[in-house]
């Protein structure tokens, strides 16, 4: 499993810009409210972070579970 993962803050505007940017289709928009990340798919590449117009995505170290 990748070491990093994307985190999306509550200020997400649910625009969906990140959907197309993710090469692994790890993002979906939850009920038109905000974006959510599928932790099993995300590799923390940061492509979503670069396109997010609201700057609400951060790439962080995965916590060991």
């Amino acid at each position, binding site marked *: 499993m990748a070491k990093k993962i994307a985190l999306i803050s509550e*200020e997400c*505007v*649910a*625009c*969906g*810009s990140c*959907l*197309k940017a993710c*090469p*692994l*289709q790890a993002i979906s*928009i939850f*009920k*038109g*409210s905000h974006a959510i990340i599928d932790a099993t798919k995300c590799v923390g590449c940061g492509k979503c972070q*670069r*396109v*997010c*117009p*609201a*700057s*609400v995505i951060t790439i962080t170290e995965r916590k060991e579970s």
Partner: protein
Amino acid sequence: MKQKKHWYDYLWIVTATYLILGFFNILFAWIGILCFIIPILFALIGGNKHYCNHYCGRGQLLERLGNGLRLSSHRSIPSWLRSKWFRYGFLVFFMTMFFNMLFSTYLVFSNVHGLREIITLFWTFKVPWEWTNTSMVSPWIAQFSFGFYSLMLTSTLLGLITMALYKPRSWCVYCPMGTMTQSICQLRHKTTSSR
């Protein structure tokens, strides 16, 4: 791995065509109502933002210009622009101006004043727009076209400015339709989950 292209990935062409058609005949502005009705229907009936997420030609156009033509600086948006205050404040302002425009249309409809063939940019600058022939319709139908096209052109220009200054789809952060549909979805979600 590139994502598969769908038919709706080309809707930016529709948006660009719409803006150009307004230069030829202002009456085409009426078609733009679809950009108001469709996202609201998605939010009210489906409880989703599929319009923003897949079908909005404006979002796609900004993305194409910003990324494809490299017209965007890709800087981060200032925090005040993405604050709830600004987003909801802009929504209220936009809707007020929208109803103001409907009222002007009503005044022309009830013959209080005549047709004004001008496009108002940024709610301030008046641009004479007299070259389009609108004699085939009632003056109020033409007045609505001028008012509605003014809103569409103004919001496109705002979108282009923030596309250039910040990330390509910065307009989507404060787009009134985006804010409105997101709140409809969140309200729907709250009411259905608390039942």
